């Protein structure tokens, strides 16, 4: 294209200059998909870096493998289906990155590759690629992996060989199995600062919060979804805690442990599988938060975030039927 352009320009005596005819509008605000992807990655960095610091090179390895294989799977699908190469938009990379953030640092290589395959191919590309996936690709991948290889997401077992300077217990599993007394043994402030066992990038509450606030302020994710998700978690956990303070941990504990914060800022807000209207966004986020605590407290799974997000992805098309009336609509 560019060479052609140059060749045309070099012909000195073209009688007519070729003008480009395009349609209105001739202005654009300059936003791009790539910009969204890269800023989301940037926002994920603080949490990820603390994970690297805690778990060392294995964590770096998992993250690199996840990002690179996610991009490769997308490339493979692009080539197989003979569609334009879309790896440049950064969407596959962001899927790989968020997937890695949810994994324990000792995840075996084959599991990482399988996970990114599920996320990119089954979670996104078979629906037609970016914008068409009904479910969050990362949540699909983690959910399938959790069912298929339960042990891989048992953080206590996976990270047993690490000698860290804080309690090597997965807090949310401890609270589930041993009641709120074990939850109280954790200092909430230390958990907030990332002193807890868990996924590579999902334990550093402060880092995720900074990233999330950045994304909300820049408009890359919607505050309606994130905040109502957190509110849903907080209120439901509060009610449970009120009903049976011995069995159920307090609301703040639920906010800071497991996948809650990464779910609120990076999973539930995924564009394609979340609603766009104001009221539906509130319902979607709140519903996700409520489901999270329900699954955690009375379901069989330790962490409910992934499944809760899949469930609210499911009701997203219905929610978006709640819409404002268009101007001059004739009923």
């Amino acid at each position, binding site marked *: 294209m560019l060479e052609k352009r140059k060749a045309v320009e070099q012909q000195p005596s073209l009688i007519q200059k070729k003008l480009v005819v395009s349609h209105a509008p001739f202005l654009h605000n*300059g936003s791009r998909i790539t910009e969204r992807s890269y800023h989301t990655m940037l926002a994920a960095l603080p949490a990820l870096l603390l994970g690297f610091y805690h778990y060392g090179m294995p964590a770096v390895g998992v993250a690199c493998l996840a990002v690179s294989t996610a991009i490769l799977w997308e490339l493979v699908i692009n080539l197989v289906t003979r569609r334009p190469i879309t790896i440049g938009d950064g969407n596959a990379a962001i899927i790989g990155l968020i997937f890695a953030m949810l994994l324990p640092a000792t995840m075996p290589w084959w599991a990482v590759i399988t996970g990114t395959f599920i996320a990119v191919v089954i979670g996104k590309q078979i629906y037609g690629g970016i914008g068409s996936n009904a479910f969050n690709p990362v949540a699909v991948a983690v959910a399938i992996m959790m069912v298929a290889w339960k042990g891989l997401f048992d953080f206590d077992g996976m990270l047993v060989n690490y000698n860290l300077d804080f309690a090597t217990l997965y807090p949310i599993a401890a609270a589930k199995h041993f009641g709120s007394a074990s939850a109280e043994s954790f200092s909430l402030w230390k958990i907030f600062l990332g002193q807890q066992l868990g996924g590579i990038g999902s334990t550093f509450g402060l880092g995720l919060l900074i990233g999330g606030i950045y994304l909300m302020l820049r408009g890359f994710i919607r505050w309606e979804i994130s905040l109502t998700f957190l509110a849903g978690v907080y209120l439901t956990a509060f009610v449970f805690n009120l009903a049976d303070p011995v069995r159920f941990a307090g609301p703040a504990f639920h906010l800071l442990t497991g996948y809650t914060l990464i779910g609120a800022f990076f999973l539930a807000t995924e564009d394609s599988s979340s609603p766009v209207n104001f009221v539906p966004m509130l319902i979607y986020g709140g519903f996700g938060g409520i489901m999270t605590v329900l699954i955690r407290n009375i379901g069989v799974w330790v962490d409910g975030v992934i499944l809760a997000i899949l469930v609210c992805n499911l009701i997203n098309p219905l929610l978006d039927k709640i819409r404002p009336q268009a101007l001059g*609509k*004739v009923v």
Partner: protein
Amino acid sequence: MVKKAFWGLSTPQINYEMLPVHLPETEKIPTPQRITLLHPKNDTLNVPSAMGIGDAVKTGAKLSLYPDQNDYVISPVTGKIAALSPYTGDFGKSYIAIAITPEGDEIIDDTFQQQSQSPTLELLCEYLSGAPGNPPLSLLADSNGGIHTIIIRGLDPDPTVATNQYIAQSRFNDLKKGIEILKQVADVRDIILITAGESVQGYGHIGAPVKGVKTTYPSALPHMVMKDVLGQVVPAGKTCEELGVCFITAEAVISIGSAFESGQLPTSKTLTFIKKDGTRKIIEARIGTPIGDILEAFGETVNEFDRIIFGGPMTGSAVYALEHPVQPDTDSIIVVDRDKAAYVSDYPCINCGECVRICPAKIQVHMLVRFLEANQYENAADSYDLHSCIECGLCSYVCVSRIPIFQYIKLAKYELKRAMTAEAADA
């Protein structure tokens, strides 16, 4: 060009730029070597030989290709007809381009002057339909139309365009005279002048109530004016004209005013010219002046793959030749460098919802565009409010995937209309 704000919590706004208090001088473009006028083409009739190449025409002379039809153009110069050629515009509109080469001293055709003592609607229709500003006189004359309100646009609907704003402020007396004539000849209830909210003052004694609209785009688009000023929402699929409201630019009113004031048909178009570097100039050129001459007058060079836009940056259209003439409704000409132009992509919608949040008509654009991409125009109209669209182009402006949504919408409306006309013809 207006870029996205760093913080993304609030919806982006495009403001209408107000002219400075001390208005700039208009810069006059000299009469060009060749003038091109676009005469509407009637596909069922052959081009008659009544007007031939080589015929002499005077300034202000009425040129009509089909003697029985109402269409005509007014010659803006004195000279000879050099060529007649077919010309195709947007969405299948066809014209005959009449080229005139100016010759000798300017002689004014006085047919209009003889009748200009007593203005009537017929006389206006007879001579001023193609006047600068393109007054919609046939709408007013059509008594079945039932137009009861005329809205004069003292503010251009597109951002950065300042033609009507300039004219309404600089030619107060002609505007007043024009309003007087409109009141006299048109059987309407109200004539309202629309201006930017902050400049409502300063229009005392204009002879018509002055209403301000917000200074953010798209407040000056017809549907928004109807809603905000008249308090009347246009039902989806209807036009403002069907509700009895007719929009006319301030320049058109001034053309009418000055024509009867001086007895001469106006032939110069005032327009906003925006150079590649963004500098804005108010210029005056004869109708029919090729865009190439205007560029030359300002020393503006156009390279391969640049764009030249007739009309505003949000709703205008790009032209493909430097010979394209200034027309009675060309309110602005914008030259855009190829590196600064907005490009579209073939990416699918990612469902981010920016378009839904900015849409002034509250359309579910993210769903609409999926139907339009699949050519399902009827479903789009039935389920996703295609006909509620007020054609502001803001959805395309904010689209992260850079989908040409606005073009899809216009195309869908055009195709649906065509299908409906075809069905009506079959029945």
